[in-house]
C-alpha cells in the first residue's frame, strides 16, 4: 500500500523542516520526503497543496473514561474523536474505574486502543492506589504494561512525603510524574477563578495560589529527587515564574497548557453555563496573556487538551453541581489556529512543535517527527477552512464545550495513522 502526500507545506520541527514537498508512505512507514519525489505511479495521491503537513499530533493529557465511565466516553469513541481532531497519539489519564493502578488495567487500555485501530492509545498509570494519595501504585508493573508516566490527575497528591517517594521511584524507572497541582485546602468549594468576576457573579473562587503553591512544592521535590516532573495544565502567571526558575536552575521540569486556558477568560462564566466549569478554572485576562506569551517564548513544552468528556446529566444542572471539564480534543487544533496562529500570537511552526516533538520529548516517545522508516503518523491542517463548532457532530460522547457555536478558521484536514487515512475534513474516513 502506497500513499503520496503531494505538494503540501511540510512542517517538521523535530527535523528542522519547513518547506513545500512530498511525502511517500509505503507499508505504513514513511519512505521518503523531498521535492517532486519520483514515484512509480501506483500510489494513491493526496493533493495537499495549500495545506500544512505535520507529524501526527500527540495529546499527552486526555480522559477516555474507559474502563468504568463509558457513559462519558470510551476508548473507541475517544479514539475516533482524537482522529477527527488531528491527533494520532493520545495518552489516557488513569482516573478510571478501576483506576489504572496495576498492569492488567493498563494492558486493557492499550489493547482496546489497538483494537479500535484509529490511533495510538497510551496509558498513564496512577501515582497512588485508587488515587487516594496514600500508597504508591505498582509503578514498575505499570511501566512493564506500557504506561508512559504516572499521574493522579483530577486530584493532587496532597502528602508531600508520598509525592517525594513517587518522584524517587518514577525516576528509578526513567518515567515522569505528571502532576495535577492544586492545594485542596485553598481551592475548597471553589467553582471559578477567584477575582473580580467571582465577586461579580457570586461564585466561590479558586485562587491562583492554590495551583502555584503546589507547583512550588513539586518543583522543590523534583530538585531534591532529580526526577522528571511534568506540570499538567498550567494556568497562572505565577506558575510560569516558578517553572521558568526551576528550568533555569537545572531541575528536570516540563509543562503543558490547554487550548481553553490560552483562549478563554473567567469573564465567560457570567451566564452560569456549566461548560465553562473546568479545573483549573478559566483564569483572568492577565493570566491568559502570560500563558500566551510563555507559549511564544518557548517556556511551554507542549499543548495538551485535558479532554474531559461528560455525559449530559453531569453538565445539564446547577453550576455548583456540575462536573468539571471540557470536551476538547476535537476543537484543540482549530482553537489554537484561529485564536493564536491567525492572530499572529503564535508562529505556525511553534504550534506544530507544541503538538508534535514537544509532547514526544516530554514523554521520551519515539514519535512526533517525519523521519524516514518511522511509522507514518501524519496530521494535515487546512489553515483556511472555516467551520462552526457543533458539539452535536462530535465523535466524542462529551458534548461539553464552551466553544459551542464559535466560528473558527483552521481545522485538521486529514489524519493519517500508521499509513492509514483515519479522518478527513472533520469526518472519520
Amino acid at each position, binding site marked *: 500500500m502506497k500513499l503520496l502526500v503531494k505538494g503540501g507545506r511540510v512542517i517538521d520541527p523535530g527535523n528542522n523542516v519547513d518547506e513545500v514537498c512530498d511525502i511517500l508512505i509505503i507499508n505504513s512507514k514513511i519512505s521518503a520526503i523531498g521535492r517532486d519525489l519520483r514515484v512509480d505511479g501506483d500510489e494513491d495521491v493526496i493533493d495537499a497543496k495549500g495545506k500544512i503537513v505535520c507529524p501526527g499530533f500527540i495529546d499527552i493529557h486526555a480522559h477516555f473514561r474507559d474502563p468504568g465511565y463509558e457513559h462519558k466516553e470510551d476508548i473507541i469513541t475517544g479514539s475516533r474523536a482524537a482522529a477527527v481532531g488531528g491527533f494520532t497519539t493520545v495518552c489516557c489519564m488513569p482516573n478510571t474505574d478501576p483506576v489504572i493502578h496495576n498492569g492488567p488495567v493498563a494492558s486493557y487500555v492499550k489493547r482496546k486502543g489497538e483494537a479500535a485501530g484509529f490511533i495510538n492509545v497510551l496509558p498513564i498509570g496512577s501515582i497512588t492506589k485508587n488515587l487516594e494519595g496514600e500508597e504508591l501504585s505498582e509503578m514498575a508493573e505499570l511501566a512493564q504494561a506500557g504506561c508512559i508516566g504516572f499521574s493522579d490527575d483530577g486530584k493532587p497528591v496532597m502528602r508531600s512525603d508520598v509525592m517525594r517517594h513517587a518522584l524517587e521511584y518514577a525516576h528509578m524507572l526513567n518515567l515522569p510524574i505528571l502532576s495535577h497541582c492544586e492545594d485542596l485546602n485553598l481551592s*475548597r468549594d471553589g*467553582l471559578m477563578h*477567584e*477575582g*473580580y468576576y*467571582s*465577586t*461579580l*457573579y*457570586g*461564585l*466561590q*473562587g479558586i485562587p491562583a495560589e492554590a495551583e502555584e503553591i503546589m507547583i512550588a512544592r513539586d518543583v522543590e521535590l523534583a530538585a531534591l529527587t532529580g526526577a522528571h516532573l511534568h506540570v499538567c495544565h498550567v494556568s497562572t502567571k505565577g506558575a510560569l515564574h516558578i517553572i521558568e526558575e526551576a528550568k533555569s536552575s537545572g531541575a528536570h521540569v516540563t509543562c503543558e497548557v490547554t487550548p481553553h486556558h490560552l483562549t478563554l477568560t473567567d469573564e465567560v462564566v457570567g*451566564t*452560569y453555563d*456549566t461548560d465553562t466549569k473546568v479545573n483549573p478554572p478559566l483564569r483572568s485576562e492577565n493570566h491568559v496573556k502570560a500563558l500566551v506569551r510563555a507559549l511564544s517564548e518557548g517556556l511551554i513544552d507542549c499543548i495538551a487538551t485535558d479532554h474531559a468528556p461528560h455525559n449530559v*446529566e453531569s453538565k*445539564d*444542572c*446547577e*453550576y*455548583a*453541581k456540575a462536573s468539571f471539564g471540557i470536551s476538547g480534543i476535537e476543537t484543540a487544533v482549530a482553537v489554537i489556529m484561529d485564536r493564536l496562529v491567525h492572530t499572529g500570537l503564535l508562529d505556525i511552526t511553534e504550534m506544530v512543535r507544541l503538538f508534535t516533538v514537544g509532547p514526544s520529548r516530554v514523554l521520551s516517545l519515539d514519535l512526533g517527527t517525519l523521519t524516514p522508516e518511522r511509522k507514518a503518523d501524519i496530521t494535515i491542517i487546512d489553515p483556511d477552512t472555516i467551520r462552526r463548532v457543533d458539539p452535536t457532530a462530535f465523535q466524542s460522547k462529551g458534548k461539553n464545550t464552551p466553544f459551542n457555536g464559535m466560528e473558527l478558521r483552521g481545522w485538521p484536514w486529514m489524519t493519517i495513522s500508521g499509513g492509514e487515512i483515519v479522518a478527513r475534513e472533520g469526518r472519520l474516513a
Partner: protein
Amino acid sequence: MRFDRRKDLLGLRDVTREEIEVILETAVPMKDIIRRDMKKVPALRGKGIITVFYENSTRTRTSFELAGKYLSADTSNLGVSTSSVQKGESLKDTIKTIEMMGPDVLVMRHPSSGAPHYVARNTGMRVINAGDGINEHPTQALLDMYSIRERKGTLEGLKVAIVGDILHSRVARSNIFGLSKFGCELRVIGPSTLIPPDVEKLGVKTYGNLESGLKGADVINVLRIQRERQHGALFPSIDEYRELYMVTPEHLALAADDAIVLHPGPMNRGIEISTELAESPRCVVNEQVSNGVAVRMAVLYLMLGGGRDEIAG
C-alpha cells in the same frame, strides 16, 4: 414603561436604573393596598404563581405568597423537603413538571449561585430569583431601596454602609448592584476574611473598622452572620465578632444625624445588632417586612404585564 421585555428577574446586576424606578414607584400604591381593610385587587386574577424554595425561608416565601394573593393571583408552594426532589429528581425535571401545571411565575430560592439563570433558560415560566447561593437576592435589595427612599425621600447620593459577611451575602451583592445605579457612596464593613476579592471594582470602599466605616453614613444595612456558611477559619469566634462588629446605638451617633438602620432578618440579636438598636425607632426592620410585600406585589404585577396606571387609580 412596562416589564414586557424582561422575562425574568434574576438579579439587579443586569437591571437598569429606570426599571428599578418603575418597580419602586409601582410599589407605592401597592403599600396602600396592604394597609386597607379589604386587601385584594383583581389585577392578577387568573394568574398562577408558584414558590419553590430549596433553602429555608420565613419572610421571603410568605411575602411572595401574600403579594400574589393580594393581587388575586393563585399562589402555591412546592415543599421541597417533601417532594420528589428528595427522590433525586433533577432541578430541570422538577421545574418542567411544575411548568406543565401551568403557573405563570416561578419564584425560586436555591443554594447554588446561578441556579435561577439555569432554570430561566429551560422554562417558559417567568422566573424571579428569591435568593441564589451567594449571588443575588434582588427583591430584598429592592425592598431595602424602597425602605431607604421612603425614609430619606431619595436614594441619590446617599452614603450607605453594609456591615458583616459581605463575601457570602447575596443581599449585599444585590444592594451594591442596585444602589450603585443611583450614585450612592457605598461602603462595606467587615472582617477582611469576609470581604470578597476586588470588591472595590464594583465601586465600593472597604473598611475593617466599624467606627470609621460608619462615619457620616445615612444608611446602615446590618447583615446576618450566617453561621451555616462559616466553615473554615474565617473569623475566630462569635464573641470576637460581637466585640468588633456589633452595631449599637453608640455607633449610630457616629453616622449622619438622621441615619437609619436596616437588617434583612432574621436578626441575631446581641451578635451583629444590639437589641436596643433593633428596637429603636431608627431601625426600620419591621417596615422592611411590609415594604417587602409591596415591592413583590409591584414586581409580580409588572412582570405579569400590568401597566402602572391601572393600579394607581
